């Protein structure tokens, strides 16, 4: 069953929904990356909660005009309008008053959502409203989705992705270096506006599939997960897009074969699975990689210090250093240095002397940044033979002066 859903052979509607969800996830991953890199991730929370009153209002207005308010396009338009209004209020509060942005976001999201709930209680009184199933927009539901709805979401998602693609270059520039992009004549305000509008579109389109409470996850989690894998904007962007699409794809497939479950939470948990994997296993920034790095560094420090003490014929007391030296065969069980140990100790001492001389030169010419830990590295792999030769000459000269 799940395989059938994953291979898109579970009927026309399910296929459309799965495609729509994947595309939506991709668009959300992309838009979310820009939000995240602009340090604005949680604004999506305000946008998504602010859709609710528009949803209710659109239904009521349509009902007043005698149109069937369940028309998806009408509902989505209403939601988009009220989300835009909410966004405007967040910006207005942040700009015009001394409240900080997070306060503005929290106030707008709670008040808008609350007003939406009030509207929902009105709608429930209307006989047509009880059947409207507006609650399904809270947590997303693809069960019983109409063909036209799925198609609408698919088309709008494609358009959103296209818009993002067209403006990719200026957006990337602003995200990467705001000052530089300003000198190129790119309006940062306009780019931020585009990012927010695309976010809004993703949110509104995601309401039916993921639900308005959890669409935030699709905007934040893929971007955060992708950040673990690279330092380059391009790679982060592609990874986030992929993660978003994958979550939408797997999540909607799972929910297609388990109709009782709301779609949104399943998609969110798929997102989180990808996050957890990135958090733990990503190279360099992942938790395991960081721990391993730390372990290696510790080992290198212990080893260098131990070998230096051996070269200076000082006793070693630190048990960890002793264990390390013994395991590598540099000292015998009774603490006496072996031949390999002796030669390596001499080499380490030379390395250390060369580095400290180099550091002095750097300090004199004001080039030392005080950050790098030189003496853990093999100088012969870091500097050219000419440089090392001049260092050795300098060292010999110093030696001569002392004698």
């Amino acid at each position: 069953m799940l395989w059938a859903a994953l291979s898109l052979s579970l009927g026309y509607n399910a296929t459309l929904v799965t495609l729509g969800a994947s595309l939506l996830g991709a668009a959300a991953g992309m838009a979310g990356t820009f939000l995240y890199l602009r340090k604005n991730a949680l604004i999506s929370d305000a946008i998504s909660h602010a859709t609710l009153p528009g949803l209710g209002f659109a239904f009521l207005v349509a009902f007043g005009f005698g149109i069937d308010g369940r028309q998806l396009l009408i509902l989505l338009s209403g939601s988009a309008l009220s989300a835009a209004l909410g966004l405007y209020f967040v910006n207005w509060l942040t700009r015009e008053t001394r409240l900080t942005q997070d306060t503005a976001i929290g106030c707008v999201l709670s008040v808008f959502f609350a007003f939406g709930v009030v509207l929902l209680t009105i709608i429930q009184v209307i006989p047509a409203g009880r059947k409207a199933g507006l609650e399904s927009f809270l947590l997303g539901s693809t069960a019983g989705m109409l063909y036209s709805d799925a198609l609408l979401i698919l088309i709008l998602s494609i358009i959103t992705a296209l818009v993002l693609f067209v403006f990719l270059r200026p957006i990337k520039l602003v995200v990467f270096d705001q000052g530089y992009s300003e000198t190129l004549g790119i309006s940062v305000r306009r780019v931020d506006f585009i990012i927010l509008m695309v976010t809004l579109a993703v949110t509104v389109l995601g309401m039916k599939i993921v639900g308005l409470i959890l669409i935030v996850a699709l905007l934040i989690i893929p971007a955060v997960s992708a950040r673990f894998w690279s330092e380059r904007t391009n790679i982060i962007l592609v990874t986030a897009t992929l993660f978003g699409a994958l979550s939408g794809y797997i999540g909607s497939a799972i929910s297609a074969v388990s109709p009782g479950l709301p779609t949104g939470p399943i998609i969110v948990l798929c997102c989180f699975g990808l996050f957890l994997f990135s958090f733990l296993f990503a190279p360099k920034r992942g938790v395991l990689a960081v721990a391993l790095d730390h372990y290696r560094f510790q080992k290198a420090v212990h080893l260098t210090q131990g070998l230096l003490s051996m070269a200076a014929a000082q006793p070693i007391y630190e048990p960890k250093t002793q264990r390390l030296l013994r395991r590598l065969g540099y000292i015998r069980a009774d603490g006496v240095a072996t031949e390999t140990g002796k030669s390596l100790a001499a080499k380490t001492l030379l390395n250390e002397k060369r580095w400290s001389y180099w550091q002095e030169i750097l300090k004199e010419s004001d080039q030392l940044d005080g950050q790098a830990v030189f003496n853990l590295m093999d100088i012969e792999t870091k500097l050219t033979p000419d440089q090392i030769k001049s260092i050795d000459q300098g060292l010999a000269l110093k030696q001569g002066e002392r004698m």
Partner: protein
Amino acid sequence: MGSEFVALGLTPVLISAFAGMACALPGNFLVLRKQALIGDAISHVVLPGIVVAYLLTGQVSTWPMMLGAAGAAVISVVLIEMIRRLGRIEYGAAMGVIFTTMFAAGVLLLEQSDTSRVHLDVEHALFGNLETLIWLQSDGWGSLLDPLSLAQLPPQFFRMVIAFFVISAFTYIFWRPLVLISFDEAYARTIGTQATVVGFLLVVLAAMAAVAAFDAVGSIIVIAMILCPPATARLLTNDIKTQVFLSLILALGATLIGYVVAGYLPLWLGYSNTLSAAGMIATVSGLLLASSAIYGRHRKRVI
């Protein structure tokens, strides 16, 4: 308006008033410390906590659920902090990852388990069930002096009152460090304030208010009450003491106005159904914020 109000209206009003004030009190400091969205996060993660507590005990009773909710709140705070530090992710994004995931897990658990017998669903968690908190044993205003019928008040009432007084006591006792860490944490540290401890206690207190208020009034009102009254008060005064008192008054006012509008406005207009009281209370608090953002004396940033 006599005995009928005491039976049907009095307890919801009192409960939401205490809930609003209990939330607004820690909210004052959260707003100043730029931790405004922590209330949002907590009110989302309370759901899985309650669901797990229900699954473990098999019944909807107060204390296991409170414990479950509080446990989930603490776990989420720890997880957010862990992800932020280990993954080197900024606070807002780490919060976004955790609260959405935990909420999603809560919803799925809820849908998977058989909760049809009991009053436990997602909408209840969001909107609360203020309207059901009635005091049927009452018999007019006189019941307020009758210990027997007082004991029959909904348990949410006592819980909320206790929570409010605990939070007030904490605020009173820790007033100085709270003010210090809210305005200048670095300075607070240099003069020996345990900023980390007090900051954590503040979050725990906010969580306590959210958890206690949650099943009575729902999570929307919690977020709205943590933020809107303090934000409104912040635009009206420069003095922190005045701000805190104002926020309490505003929370109370929003509750009373919101409740009356939701419960009685439709009746006066000739409709028979009432509106969501929790939603209306939060909406009124938002309107109060909007008016203070337009007219407030101290609304502008001081440069």
